[in-house]
């Protein structure tokens, strides 16, 4: 059986699970004993199997670029005669999308299993809505991953955001989750507005938004730059930069980079499995996946790449500083997510396509692991997420502890866990191309390097406060029972985070000379315009990134040292039977800094203030306009007729002779007019 012919089934299976759960939940609830988990698990297990099966043909160089359904046939523009290609849904299966398919379906499946323990076993009600939304999310994310044109990606981008809104606001009867859900939706929507403008710009400029093939828009853009003739009056490189930056708006919103990162910490109001799936591994990955997908387009514009790199490096540092002071475990993980996606953006902006994809893959694994572990801890602590109430859980939850520790070490980037290999690849690419003649990349590298230290610090702080020491509250002393449905995903992901780094061990390749960078070769198997090699050429020729040919071992050692020293500092502060935050380190000197960090650099308040200001201005203008002009016109019309009527009514004086006078006056005038008309005078 050719796996390529049944590609459509991969996203459609979760969609059918969604429909089954929805209708069964409404009309026949007794059919689904676990309130909808079983159809989702079955569908995703089959999707995972099919995605794994797809690995075989793709690894031998085959790919799929097929149109599935045309919903707007191609037309010829009547004015310019240009052929506008059709708008369609289609599939693009190449190494990158295949890798993402595997990751998304695997993590979705594990989250479904975990949800049985987090939601069903804790006695939650209304879970049909939950599982239906999760299935719908899986459908949209899988479709987003295999879409073959930008417009289809945009549609599923939005659908993913919608599912996120449903799931964050799952416990809508409390006051905080619906607000957090709306905030998430609106902030990402704000970015998506620019994305939409970018999509339209692509369609208008190039006539097509396909990703792959000779007629794909990256190829057309490249030939436009080589051609050199201005597009809409500006130089082609500038136009491509503008489009790239517009699309970047959506990426910044969705992947929670600065300044549109404010929604992600609030999104932690949703259930922890949701946070694991959506806000760690998949939905926020959609943004950076998009950049990787159209990397052939971004590689043509050095400005866009520099913006991406600088933004990524800055976000990595900025979010890491905020994660250092948070009290709740999920908040620390949220800021950590923002920070790590900053790293991926740094990699992509620095010309390291392979490094970015690698870190994306490993981050998905260990961040999902950390969130699922946090879910286990929260269940144990009777739904309390404040780390200062935890402590000493190591002895009571051993499996959770070891898997969480693996995940943390991967996050901090300690050898030999997955994070070490990928993060060092990222930093190496930044340094390499930076030393090859791009000072912005060096600045971003510096940001990233400082963030490594902070990452190590906050990671170990998290582990130490949660698991080490002695219990600081009653739930910590008597944790809730956790069952196998929590443990199994943790174990699977723990093992993966230990060994997943093996897919691209570039330093080892340099040390030993043989072929260890499997991912790099995998990504070279793509169709000709989508290979890592092709991107490398584009970066060299169009964006001027040159490799400085430094060794990859030295930067790896530098970042490893920094990470270990961060962890050591955290050990020193927090590794005691009764750790305190306001201890010696945070005495009066750093108190102000502490306050600022706890308030997220007041960015939330600032964004709220801007929003309120804009809203109030627009609303008051609209209100004045409405009341004075729209209502005013209506009021004045009636007032006019009323006042005319009032003045006219003064004619009724009641004196008969006046009436007779008016009658005769009227007669006189009529006679006069008649006479003048007939020309008698």
């Amino acid at each position, binding site marked *: 059986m050719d796996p390529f012919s049944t590609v459509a089934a991969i996203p459609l299976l979760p969609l059918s699970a969604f429909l089954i759960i929805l209708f069964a939940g409404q009309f026949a609830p007794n059919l689904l004993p676990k309130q909808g988990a079983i159809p989702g698990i079955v569908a995703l297990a089959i999707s995972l199997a099919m995605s794994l099966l797809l690995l075989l043909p793709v690894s031998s160089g085959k790919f799929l670029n097929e149109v599935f359904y045309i919903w707007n046939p191609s037309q010829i523009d009547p004015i310019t005669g240009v052929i506008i290609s059709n708008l369609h849904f289609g599939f693009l299966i190449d190494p990158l999308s295949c890798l993402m398919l595997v990751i998304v379906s695997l993590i979705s499946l594990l989250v479904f299993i975990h949800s049985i323990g987090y939601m069903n076993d804790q006695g939650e009600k209304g879970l049909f809505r939950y599982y239906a939304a999760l299935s719908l999310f899986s459908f949209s994310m899988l479709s987003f991953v295999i879409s073959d044109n930008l417009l289809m990606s945009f549609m599923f981008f939005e659908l993913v955001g919608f599912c996120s809104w449903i799931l964050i606001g799952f416990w809508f009867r409390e006051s905080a989750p619906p607000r957090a859900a709306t905030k998430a939706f609106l902030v990402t929507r704000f970015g998506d507005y620019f994305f939409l403008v970018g999509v339209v710009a692509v369609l208008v400029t190039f006539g097509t938004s396909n990703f792959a093939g000779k007629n794909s828009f990256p190829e057309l853009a490249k030939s436009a730059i080589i051609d050199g003739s201005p597009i809409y009056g500006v130089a082609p490189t500038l136009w491509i930069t503008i489009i790239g930056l517009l699309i970047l708006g959506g990426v910044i919103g969705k992947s929670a980079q600065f300044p549109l990162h404010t929604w992600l910490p609030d999104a932690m109001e949703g259930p922890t499995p949701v946070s694991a799936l959506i806000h760690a591994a998949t939905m926020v990955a959609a943004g950076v996946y998009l950049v990787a997908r159209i990397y052939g387009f971004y590689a043509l514009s050095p400005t866009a790449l520099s913006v991406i790199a600088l933004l990524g490096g800055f976000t990595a540092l900025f979010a890491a500083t905020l994660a250092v002071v948070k009290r709740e475990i999920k908040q620390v993980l949220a800021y950590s997510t923002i920070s790590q996606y900053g790293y991926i953006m740094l990699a992509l902006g620095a010309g390291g396509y392979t490094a970015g994809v690698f870190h994306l893959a490993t981050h998905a694994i260990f961040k999902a692991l950390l969130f699922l572990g946090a879910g286990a801890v929260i269940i144990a602590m009777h739904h309390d997420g404040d780390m200062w109430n935890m402590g000493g859980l190591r002895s009571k939850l051993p499996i959770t502890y070891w898997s969480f520790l693996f995940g943390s070490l991967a996050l901090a980037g300690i050898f030999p866990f997955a994070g070490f290999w990928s993060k060092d690849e990222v930093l190496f690419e930044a340094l390499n191309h930076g030393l090859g003649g791009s000072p912005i990349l060096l600045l971003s590298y510096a940001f990233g390097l400082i963030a490594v230290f902070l990452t190590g610090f906050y990671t170990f702080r998290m582990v130490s406060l949660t698991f080490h020491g002695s219990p600081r509250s009653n739930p910590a002393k008597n944790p809730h029972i956790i069952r196998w449905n929590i443990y199994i995903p943790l174990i699977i992901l723990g093992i993966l985070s230990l060994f997943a780094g093996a897919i691209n061990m570039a330093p080892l390749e340099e040390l030993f000379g043989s072929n260890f960078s499997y991912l790099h070769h995998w990504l070279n198997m793509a169709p000709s315009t989508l290979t890592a090699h092709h991107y490398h050429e584009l970066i060299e020729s169009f964006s001027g990134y040159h490799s400085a040919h430094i060794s990859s071992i030295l930067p790896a050692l530098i970042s490893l040292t920094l990470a270990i020293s961060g962890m050591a500092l955290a050990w020193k502060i927090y590794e005691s039977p009764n750790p305190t935050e306001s201890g010696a380190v945070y005495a009066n000197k750093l108190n102000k800094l502490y306050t600022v960090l706890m308030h997220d650099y007041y960015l939330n308040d600032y964004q709220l203030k801007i929003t309120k200001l804009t809203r109030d201005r627009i609303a008051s203008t609209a209100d004045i306009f409405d009341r004075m002009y729209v209502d005013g016109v209506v009021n004045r019309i009636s007032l006019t007729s009323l006042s005319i009527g009032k003045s006219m009514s003064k004619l*009724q*004086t*009641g*004196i*008969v*002779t006046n009436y007779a006078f008016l009658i005769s006056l009227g007669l006189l005038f009529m006679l006069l007019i008649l006479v003048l008309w007939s020309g008698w005078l």
Partner: protein
Amino acid sequence: MVPISYYVFLSLAIFSIGLFGVLTRRNALMFLISIELMLNAANLNFVAFSFLHGNLTGQIFTLFILALAAAEVAVGIGIIIVLHRTFSDIDVTKAVTMRW
């Protein structure tokens, strides 16, 4: 025989005088009297034109107007009596309750 246009002028003059009386006098009975003048002016016009054309229609019309004028005076006097009863004065400028 005098040209008929003289009679037309005469009737116009009487009509205008009657109109003047209607517009300026305040006594309700004066009102009525002035209206009688106007009617008579119209009658004169009818008879003059009947003489002009040698047709009896004008004269018969005059008869009808005569009859109706009498009826109208009767009703008018009835109204003036009621007016006097209600306002105890027949000054038309005093009876002004039906106004704005």
